[in-house]
């Protein structure tokens, strides 16, 4: 039964977060997962450690959460699949099948998965260029993500955007200019307020981007106009090769907006991220205005595939984070401790994830490069193009 559930989840059917039922006693006898379907809806209770949150002008969210087993397995499956996908991108880049920029989120899986688990399809997310994981959790297929990286027809942006320009429903990319996505995100929140949509926009940026002027401009308008915007600083401690301490006069990113309350979260713990995002959604959609959230996380890889990531930090540090704070290992431990699944079942999910990613890569590789006619499409909206667009020389021009 678990296997079937996992496969369904891996096929990227979105599992809507279930409303939390009142607390129920958790059976200590380890249920057999192959017994019946109702086992996966059984609840597990989690208490987060005190160190999960720090707050600024805010009351701490509750440390007690409850999930169904299905939700927990879903989180695990998504994180594992995402990691596999990023590892596949790593290999493809080294094999020179991916060109240009490629920023991987290996190690940061709890951020996108935790956030997605706490929100709905009405909520929106926007981030910068480390976007493959978000594209995936928001509904992009692995084939279309890898396809985009390979520059193929099946790519999520038809091969015309590349690594940094991926969009999926409720996800506005994928943006290449550091910091630009933050006021864009405030604009998306503006739309939600304008159209009376009771939903939130998570506008993400890194520790490097946090000092951008336009970030503060966005803070100001969001607070002034009570926009349902959560400004999320994904602090992975390094802006490219510059450590947070070398770029920021204040590294307390959750306090940087001054007049906007903030929360700092252990971004390596998917449950903590979930709780913080759930809290943030409730806060911003109840008319209390924006919020700032700092997710402390870590990337094992370099800034991008062009950066080994070891010239500005030690291998010991990377290794230490991997062995003590890995989000997947952490969740795995919870799953086993709470009897949500056995190690063998988790290994089966790992294997399935690998298989699914490998298959998706093969399918993406089989997709051709975009047809030349795509070159001329989407410059303007269909039907509103000018008469002609010039090519490299007048003879190569295209007439609509």
């Amino acid at each position: 039964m678990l296997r079937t559930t996992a496969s369904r989840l891996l096929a990227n059917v979105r599992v809507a977060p279930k409303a939390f039922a009142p607390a129920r006693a958790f059976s200590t006898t380890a249920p057999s997962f192959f017994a019946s379907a109702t086992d996966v809806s059984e609840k597990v209770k989690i208490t987060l450690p005190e160190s999960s949150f720090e707050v600024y002008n805010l009351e701490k969210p509750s440390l007690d959460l409850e999930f169904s087993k299905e939700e927990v397995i879903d989180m695990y499956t998504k994180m594992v699949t995402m990691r596999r996908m990023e590892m596949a991108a790593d290999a493809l880049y080294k094999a020179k099948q991916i060109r240009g920029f490629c920023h991987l989120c290996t190690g940061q899986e709890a951020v996108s998965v935790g956030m997605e688990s706490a929100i709905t399809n009405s909520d929106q997310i926007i981030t910068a260029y480390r976007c493959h994981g978000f594209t995936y959790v928001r509904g992009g297929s692995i084939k279309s993500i890898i396809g985009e990286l390979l520059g193929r027809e099946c790519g999520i942006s038809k091969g015309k955007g590349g690594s940094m320009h991926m969009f999926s429903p409720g996800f506005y990319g994928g943006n290449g200019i550091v910091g630009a996505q933050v006021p864009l995100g405030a604009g998306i929140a503006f739309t939600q307020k304008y159209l009376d949509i009771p939903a939130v926009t998570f506008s993400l940026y890194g520790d490097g981007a946090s000092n951008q002027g336009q970030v503060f401009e966005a803070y100001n308008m969001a607070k002034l106009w009570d926009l349902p915007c959560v400004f999320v600083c994904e602090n992975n401690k390094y802006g490219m090769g510059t450590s947070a301490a070398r770029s920021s006069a204040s590294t307390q990113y959750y306090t940087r907006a001054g007049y906007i309350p903030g929360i700092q979260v252990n971004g390596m713990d998917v449950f903590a991220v979930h709780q913080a995002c759930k809290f943030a959604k409730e806060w911003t959609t109840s008319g209390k205005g924006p919020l700032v959230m700092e997710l402390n996380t870590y990337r094992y890889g370099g800034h991008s595939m062009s950066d080994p990531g070891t010239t500005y930090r030690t291998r010991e540090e990377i290794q230490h984070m991997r062995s003590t704070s890995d989000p997947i290992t952490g969740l795995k431990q919870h799953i086993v401790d709470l009897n949500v699944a056995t190690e063998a079942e988790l290994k089966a999910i790992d294997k399935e994830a690998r298989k699914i990613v490998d298959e998706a890569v093969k399918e993406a590789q089989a997709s051709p490069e975009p047809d030349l006619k795509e070159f001329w499409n989407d410059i303007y909206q269909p039907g509103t193009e000018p008469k002609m667009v010039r090519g490299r020389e007048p003879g190569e021009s295209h007439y609509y």
Partner: protein
Amino acid sequence: MTFLANSIRNAAPLIARQAAVKQTPFALSAVAQKRWKSNTVEMTVRDALNQALEEELAADEKVFLLGEEVAQYNGAYKVTRGLLDKFGPKRVIDTPITEAGFAGLATGAALSGLKPICEFMTFNFAMQAIDHIVNSAAKTHYMSGGAVKCPIVFRGPNGAAAGVAAQHSQCFAAWYGSVPGLKVVSPWNSEDAKGLLKAAIRDPNPVVVLENELQYGLSFPMSEEAQSSDFVIPIGQAKVEREGKDITIVSHSRSVGFSMEAAEQLAKDGISVEVVNLRSIRPLDVDTIVKSVKKTNRIITVEGGWASYGVGSEIAAQIMESEAFDYLDAPLTRVAGADVPTPYANNLETYAFPDTPIIVKVIRDTLNKKIGA
């Protein structure tokens, strides 16, 4: 500086062709409504823009306006006067002085389903936001493979004003005109202003509307057709403001007015000048320009921006690459802003921008050129 209006009524029922421009340099807020025959009224460019904004705000709930001083102040140049009262603070929004921030916010709103009109107090200040105009707005539809749309309008005064010196006088037509994914329009008279702004707001692509502060107070005839709330001028089509046969002037924005005056002056000496008002910078209506050159065999361009890498340079290159090249009896000359940061002193500022006398001079020079001589 005042010229007598001298309009000729065309036989065609709906189109009133204007032959000259009534210049009222210090026209203030009140709309000069002078009833002509067949329901043409006089309207300032400012009021035409205001009418366009009002009509489009009324027609579509998703359209909204934001910018510095657009609401309670009624607009730094009074273009948005009365709109806050009519539509309320949800639709007409005063922003803080943060161009990068509010242009980005407006772009985000457009990406997520609204239709923002983002006003820059002048396009000089839009340089702070140009990353959003170009990278967030213009390119996104393409980069997303058509998944994300951006129906936004960026508008405001562009180019020279009077006595505001270098940082407040630059023309950005060439910069925005070069960007694929943008449309760029540059109205001259009131009909242009209303029709192009309405077209821009209705266009589902990002459109830059380059107005001109010195034009705001000038009155022009508005035909009955132009007064209608459905009046739209197609983007990408130039207009022959005055027909002629000896030489073509291609111009945009305020320079069209000087070109028309030059044409009127030269007519007294028997020189017949055709004046083409570009109306759109991107897409550029090359066909109309080529057709005109084939007729007159001579062409000059007039613009307020710098000559280097400018609109005139683009037109020169387009002529070279088109069949119009074979019809030239003289090379193209660009009349443009002088290659200096705009000075403040009145005499120096006059020397920095094209005006009627310089256009007349260049036309005479061009007509005196002989092939092979």
